[in-house]
């Protein structure tokens, strides 16, 4: 256990992170390109039309991964925030801050592609039901985290407050899940009904297995894997940028302090020189 912790400490050091994250980021980016190319080829040229949705099912190959990554992104933010508050790990805040805009982007894509699917299938771009509204709330929570952080000048305080807010907000994730299917835990006596919604229940992550035909399921899973690799590649890149930004800020502050010290020294030596000259 101690050795695992030591490894995390060792690889979590920002300097070490900058060394190992570059090849890992390139690997994720390459896998994303390969998987997305393969997945989208299958989606457009191999997967058949759905018997109900027709060609519109092709939107699912981007909508479903975006929705999954919207939730996973928030999980990354909350998990990293926990790491900051409990373990004060140097990279935890960097990871949390960097995941927010990427998670927000995927949430935006889930909302937009869902609306574009909804119009031909449901006859409307939007309904204020529990699933759609809770995902919209998730998007606003991402925006709220960005707004809160940018509104506080003290970076340490901003990091702690956004970490607390993101951990409080994690409750939205199970709500999104149960907003369509409800919740039934018989041995705990918990029975929550599902809300009245247009959104269909899960077709992939089900206790009784996926209900999608393999010709559509496989391209969907490959696209999901590709988008997940893209998420991690961009997250690592954003983390590297954040470390560079913090280094730049520290150096600029050191430069200003050095300039002030030099100015004081020049004034002090100038005063001493003028006093000697006046004697």
């Amino acid at each position, binding site marked *: 256990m101690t050795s695992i912790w030591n490894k995390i400490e060792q690889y979590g050091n920002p*300097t070490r992170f900058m060394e190992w994250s570059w090849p890992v980021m390139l690997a994720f980016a390459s896998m994303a390109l390969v998987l997305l190319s393969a997945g989208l080829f299958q989606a*457009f040229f191999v997967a058949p039309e759905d018997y109900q949705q*027709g*060609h*519109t099912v*092709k*939107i699912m190959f*981007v*909508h479903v991964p*975006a929705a999954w990554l919207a939730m996973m992104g928030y999980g990354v933010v909350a998990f990293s925030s926990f790491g900051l508050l409990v373990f004060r790990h140097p990279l935890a805040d960097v990871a949390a801050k960097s995941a927010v*805009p*990427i998670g927000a*982007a995927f949430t*935006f*894509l889930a909302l*937009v*592609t869902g609306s*574009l*699917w909804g*119009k*031909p299938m449901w006859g409307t771009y939007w309904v204020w039901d529990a699933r759609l509204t809770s995902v919209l709330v998730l998007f606003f929570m991402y925006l709220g985290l960005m707004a809160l952080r940018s509104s506080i000048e003290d970076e340490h305080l901003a990091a702690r407050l956004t970490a607390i807010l993101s951990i409080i907000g994690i409750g939205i994730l199970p709500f999104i899940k149960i907003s369509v299917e409800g919740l039934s835990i018989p041995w705990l006596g918990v029975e929550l009904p599902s809300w009245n919604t247009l959104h269909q229940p899960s077709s992939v992550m089900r206790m009784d297995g996926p209900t999608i035909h393999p010709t559509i399921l496989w391209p969907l899973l490959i696209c999901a894997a590709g988008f997940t690799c*893209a998420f991690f590649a*961009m997250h690592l*890149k*954003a983390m*590297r*940028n954040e470390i*560079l*930004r913090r*280094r*730049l800020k*520290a*150096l*600029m502050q*050191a*430069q200003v302090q*050095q300039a002030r010290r030099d100015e004081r020294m020049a004034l002090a030596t100038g005063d001493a020189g003028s006093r000697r000259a006046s004697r």
Partner: protein
Amino acid sequence: MLDLGKHAIFIWSSYAVVAVVISGLALWLVAEGVRLRRRLGELDEQGVRRRSRRD
């Protein structure tokens, strides 16, 4: 061009939005990294370095 039926506009619009957002995000991250490295390089030339990199 693929024939995606009467709802093709919704399908192509979905993929266009995804392409714009993902590639925009990736390009912004790469450009930001280049900008930060260039700025750090300028400071380095002025002799402003991290303690671990001082001569």
